[in-house]
Every structure is written in C-alpha cells, then in structure tokens.
C-alpha cells in the first residue's frame, strides 16, 4: 500500500473520494426528500437564501408582462370585450336558473336542517412563472403565506379546477396543476353521479380517469365535476370533459381520456379558495399515529 507516489502538493482528498462523498450525500438528501419529506427545513432555508436572486431574475420577465399588458392593442381589447360580452349573454340563462335553484336549494336544506355550505372566500392571485422542473407540472403564484395562502388550498380559474397549493413561501406559493401525473382529483360524472379519480396523463395537457371498470358508464362528452369527498376540493367545480373512451376486453380498466375544463397553461389570473366546506371529522376509531400518517399523505398529493 505504501507504493503509491507521495503527493508533492497537499490538495486534500482525491477527486474520486470527493465525488463519491457528495454523490452519497445527494442521494441521501434525495431519499429523505422523496420518501420522508425530511428535507423540507433545508429547502426552506435554501429557498429563502435564493429568494432575492430569484426576484432579481424574475424582475425583467414580470416587467415585460406588465409592459405588454400596458401596450395591448386597442383592437385586441375590443375583440376580448366582444367575446366576454357574448359569453356573458350566453351564460345569462344558466345564471338566472342558478339563482332560482339556489333559492330552492336553500329552502330544501333548511327543511332538512342540513348544514348549509359555507360561503367561499378566495384570494386573487396571478401566475408569475411556470415551475422550472420539467418532470412535474407546477406554477408559482404571487400570493404566499403572508396573504393567507395555506397548504392544500384548491386553485381555480374562470372555467374550472386548476390545481392545488403544494408549497407555500412567504410571498409566493407553488401550485401543482391537475395535469401533473401524480395529482389526483376525486370527481363525479355529472350525468349519472359515478365517482372516480382523475389524474394527469403526463403529457401536460390532458387528464386520465383511472381505475374505472371496462364497462363503466362513461361516454365521450361527459362532464366531470369535483365530488368533494376528499375535503380539499369543494363539491361541484368543473374539472374536465371526457374526450375518448377505449374499452379493451383484455384490460380490467377502461382507458378514459379527458380534457381539463380550466385553461391549463394559458391563464394568468387564478383564484385560491381559502374557506373550504366544513368536512365532518373522521370517526375516532383509528389510533392517533395512523391518522397522522394518513393526514400527511393526504396533504402531499405527489
């Protein structure tokens, strides 16, 4: 072992030793982060340190967006105004009917002595930029814990469910979009009340209704709304429209493709819903330890 050439200059450990050390350290961190979420405090500290750099880097992009808004051409605005007006006109009958139904619903609920829905409070937020991670579908919005944004709050746009808050910084929050492969949304088919869970299909634009039996009563054109059984998304928000159903006799499940109702990837203004429906507490039969684990899982939708 003493045959190795002695080093002329002291240069610390050999590069191979160093790279092995750092590789093992990285893998340890990755496992801690992916499996146990123990790396969260470290991430918070590092994110805080990187925050000023991020602000500086984002400044020109945000300024450009504001400038583009300012110089939006007259004709474009007129066109948008026209479209919005016609949209409102088209929506009017449904809205009027909704008013009547709401009133009727109130009366029925009162008679049934049911808890009426809490009014939804919401925070208006703007998407600042898309997440820089090409492996997941996330966006950052310009409201954070200082504005009252909390973990697991649902995020919607004008047309439907957009996603869920998965990480909160003081002035920014990360939204995992419904098109993320690991983001489940419990839904219900409007036509027949069939329940299911919809996931992102991984291409960033479409959704997949998984685990539905091959003979399930789902047709192209069916509208999916949130079922509200997870306690995260309030009931009845539009999520997607079924675009294609493939039933393969060999497979146990049907392959159901859906198009999200929200304008994923094209919108800038979103609403973060802050006051959800009060969900009755789960039955107390479970031991506290198990419950804690379950809650942790429910909170982290990856």
């Amino acid at each position, binding site marked *: 072992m003493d045959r190795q050439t002695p080093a002329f200059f002291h240069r610390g450990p050999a590069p191979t030793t160093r790279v092995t050390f750092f590789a093992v350290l990285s893998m340890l961190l*990755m496992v801690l*982060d992916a499996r146990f979420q123990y790396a969260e405090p470290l991430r918070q500290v590092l994110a805080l340190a990187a925050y000023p750099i991020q602000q500086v880097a984002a400044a020109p992009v945000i300024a450009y967006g504001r400038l583009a808004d300012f110089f939006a051409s007259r004709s474009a605005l007129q066109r948008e105004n026209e479209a919005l007006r016609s949209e409102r006109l088209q929506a009017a009958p449904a809205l009027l009917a909704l008013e009547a139904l709401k009133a009727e619903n109130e009366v029925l609920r009162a008679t049934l002595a049911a808890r009426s829905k809490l009014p939804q409070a919401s925070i208006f937020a703007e998407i600042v930029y898309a997440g820089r991670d090409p492996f997941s579908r996330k966006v950052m919005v310009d409201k954070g814990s200082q504005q009252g944004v909390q973990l697991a709050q649902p995020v919607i746009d004008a047309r439907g469910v957009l996603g869920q808050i998965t990480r909160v910084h003081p002035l920014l929050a990360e939204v995992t979009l419904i098109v993320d492969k690991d983001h489940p949304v419990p839904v219900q088919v409007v036509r027949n009340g069939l329940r299911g869970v919809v996931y992102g299909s991984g291409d960033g634009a479409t959704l997949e209704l998984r685990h539905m039996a091959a003979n399930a009563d789902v047709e192209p054109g069916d509208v999916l709304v949130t079922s509200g059984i997870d306690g995260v998304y309030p009931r009845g928000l539009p999520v997607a429209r079924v675009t294609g159903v493939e039933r393969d006799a060999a497979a146990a499940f049907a392959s159901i493709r859906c198009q999200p109702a929200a304008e994923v990837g094209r919108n800038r203004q979103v609403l973060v819903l802050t006051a959800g429906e009060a969900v009755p507490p789960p039955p107390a039969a479970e031991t506290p330890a198990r419950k804690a684990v379950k809650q942790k899982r429910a909170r982290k939708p990856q």
Partner: protein
Amino acid sequence: MHGEREHILLPVKVGFIAASLAVALLFNLVPWRDLRGVPDLLALVIAFWCIHQPRKMGIGIAWALGLVMDAANGTLIGQHAFAYAVLAFGGQALHRRIPWFPLWQQALHVLVLLVASQALTLVVRLIAGGTFPGWWFFAGSLIAAALWPAATHVLLAPQRRPEIVDENRPI
C-alpha cells in the same frame, strides 16, 4: 493552446469566477414560459472553471450551487447537486486533455459531460416517479455545448488582457 496565436494567460481572479457563477445562476433562475431548449448556463460555467481552473473550482462548490438550484426550482433536493458534482468531477478528470483540442472539439467533450449529467438527473427523477419530459430535455445541453466557444472567449477575456500594451510581446 493550438493554432496560430498562443496566449500566455494572466492568473485568474477568484472574484471573476464567483461573479461569472453568480451571473449564470441568475440566468438559470429567470422564469421562462417554456423551458424547451433553454441552456443550463450554470452547468456550462461550472464545467468551464473545472476544466480551466481545477484548483479553484471544485466538486464541493458545484454541489452547493446545485442545492441552491434545487431549492429555487422546487425540484427534488439533491438532484441538481448530484448532477453538478458529477459534472465537476468529469471536468476535473478531463482538465489536462480538453485544452489541447480546438474549440469545437472541446465543445464535443463538454457536450458529453453535460448530457451525462443530465442523463443522471433523468434517471434519478424517473426512479422517483417523475414523468419523462420528452427528448427536448437534452436540447438545452446541445445549445449549451454550442455556446462553449463563446463562453471560452468571454470567460478567458480578463486573463488575456495585457497589463502594458506592447505589440512585440506575446502576452
């Protein structure tokens, strides 16, 4: 080290290395609407200094910069750190070989290093349950490698500057 004019370089300033890394980090944190084909300039600059100044730029610094990238991007903690550490190691291992080639052949070497470090990231994320983002994922490396000659000119410029201008002196 090749070709018509050979420069004897001035010693590098540590402050310039730090500044170039900071600028590259800043570029990497610019929020793009679409990530396709955006080169990872930080990886390029790390590779550059590991090849040209292996005594000053090491695996540890690359690793720490990777951690900052992970935290800022909301990716898996350790993913960029791992990739950058391996990239820095590759750069240091090849630092005696690469400067002997003409610039475009140097760029090919760097392309291999960058793609290898990105492939590591890809493997790690696929194991962790990520979605395969498509082959455009590697386009950033191609563009970064194509920027190698430009990066060499810019990053070596301060060391090429003569202290006293004299036409008859090689420095």
